[in-house]
């Protein structure tokens, strides 16, 4: 899958690359350089972000676990819809049933939004994910997160195996909706190739600072 970040112009890319990003060591079992963009089938770029309490978390902390990255924005009505309908908690429960070694990180790249907002939002919707703050949007840019929600699934070796939509039900209310995250976790856990490995995400645009 071609990285959709390649839409970035040379100018935008240069500006992005010149920005100082404090990335830690490469993801476990993977060799991603500090400036590489997220691409399905390749090492997921490592990152370090703070949670609402100011504690730092790196992707490399979750060595040996499947990691679900979910871009969120509590002000986005589509994020709220999938959370309110219980789709995210159901997804997390089903993923956990498939594989106990799984971590769910909810990243908020909304400019100017306090970290506590994400934590409160997750608590309100009973979503057991860790809220991480990407206020300057650098991790979001590196992953090419375009919408809220936008999902990335990383396997235990640190390889990005899926990115895109949470499910095939943008409208909501579909009885037999397919959750692509559960699908990816199931396939990773059983050693299969993840298919589909990309489905266009839907939702509000990520409200980046730049």
């Amino acid at each position, binding site marked *: *899958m*071609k990285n*959709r*970040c*390649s*839409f*970035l*112009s040379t*100018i*935008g890319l240069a500006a992005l690359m010149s920005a100082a990003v404090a990335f830690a060591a490469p993801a476990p079992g993977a060799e991603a350089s500090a400036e590489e963009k997220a691409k399905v089938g390749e090492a997921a770029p490592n990152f370090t972000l703070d949670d609402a309490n100011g504690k730092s978390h790196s992707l490399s902390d979750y060595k040996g676990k499947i990691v679900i990255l979910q871009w969120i924005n509590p*002000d*986005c*009505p*589509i994020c709220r*819809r999938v959370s309110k309908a219980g789709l995210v908690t159901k997804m997390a429960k089903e993923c956990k049933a498939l594989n106990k070694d799984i971590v769910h990180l909810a990243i908020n790249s909304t*400019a*100017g*939004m306090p970290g506590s907002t994400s934590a409160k939002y997750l608590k309100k919707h009973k979503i057991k994910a860790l809220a991480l703050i990407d206020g300057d949007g650098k991790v*979001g*840019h590196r992953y*090419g997160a*375009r*919408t809220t929600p936008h999902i990335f699934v990383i396997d235990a070796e640190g390889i990005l195996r899926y990115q895109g939509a949470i499910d*095939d039900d*943008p*409208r909501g209310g579909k009885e037999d909706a397919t959750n692509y995250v559960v699908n990816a976790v199931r396939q990773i856990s059983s050693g299969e190739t993840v*298919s*589909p*490995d*990309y*489905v*266009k*995400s*839907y*939702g*509000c*645009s*990520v*409200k*980046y*600072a*730049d």
Partner: protein
Amino acid sequence: MRNALTNAMLGLVVLLGAVADACGQFKPSQGRQKSAEDLVAVSFVSDTARIAPGQTFHLAIVFEIEPHWHIYWVSPGASGLPTQVDIIAPEGFVVGEPLYTRPQAFGSSETLEGLTYGYEKNAVLFVPITAPVDLKKGSASFQADILYLVCKSFCLMGNINRSLTLETDDKENHASIGVDPILARAKDRLPQALEQLEESKVAFDGKLLTVRISAGDSKTATLYPIELPGITYENPKVVLKGDFFIATVEVEINPDNALGEEMKLVGVVGLGKNRDDPSYMFELSLSKP
């Protein structure tokens, strides 16, 4: 002195608020929040007053959108949600696929947010309906379930229902179609088939999709690719060569991501800059013959 201090503090608060808003950090939770229904007035109409047996007519969803806000096209681009309608029709009526008028582009391909496609100010979404040939005299009621995402610096989602009852005839009538000037103008914005333009053609070499289209009097043109599962587009470009526009876009195909749907390259080329200017739809199947 106290008043002066109070005024200064108030001024500071107003200034900070203005700066926050200008920086795109407006919090919709502050103050009274408008609903999607406040921002978009939706009406459900038809281009025919009386339905005749076997007649094909259009139901139309008319959106009047608050200035500076927009809703989305069938293929919203980098983000967003397609404006959608589900029609529930009486038994015997055949409901066609919704028809979207030419969109306009928002944002920039120079940023990660990317280009999105949709409508500002107003939009009309048509749904073709064919009546049964054994239609009886009386009336027919239609329900429309409409979903839209309306965005500016933040987004709101609208999901509303509208109903419409039309008279029916048991024989052919002479009620004219398209007399409503708003609907007539909107119908003119529907993309026409590219094949109807002489010497226009669509070609795909496995990597690059090329659409050649007669330029007529137009000086500019825009390519609006429609993203279907398993197909991604990058770097759409249009150049004028002689009497033709040559629109190109890089295509990446991954059948594993097609979700079982037919793989085809679909899109619209719009001539000129305005959404009232002519536009043409192309479709190229990737299925083997």
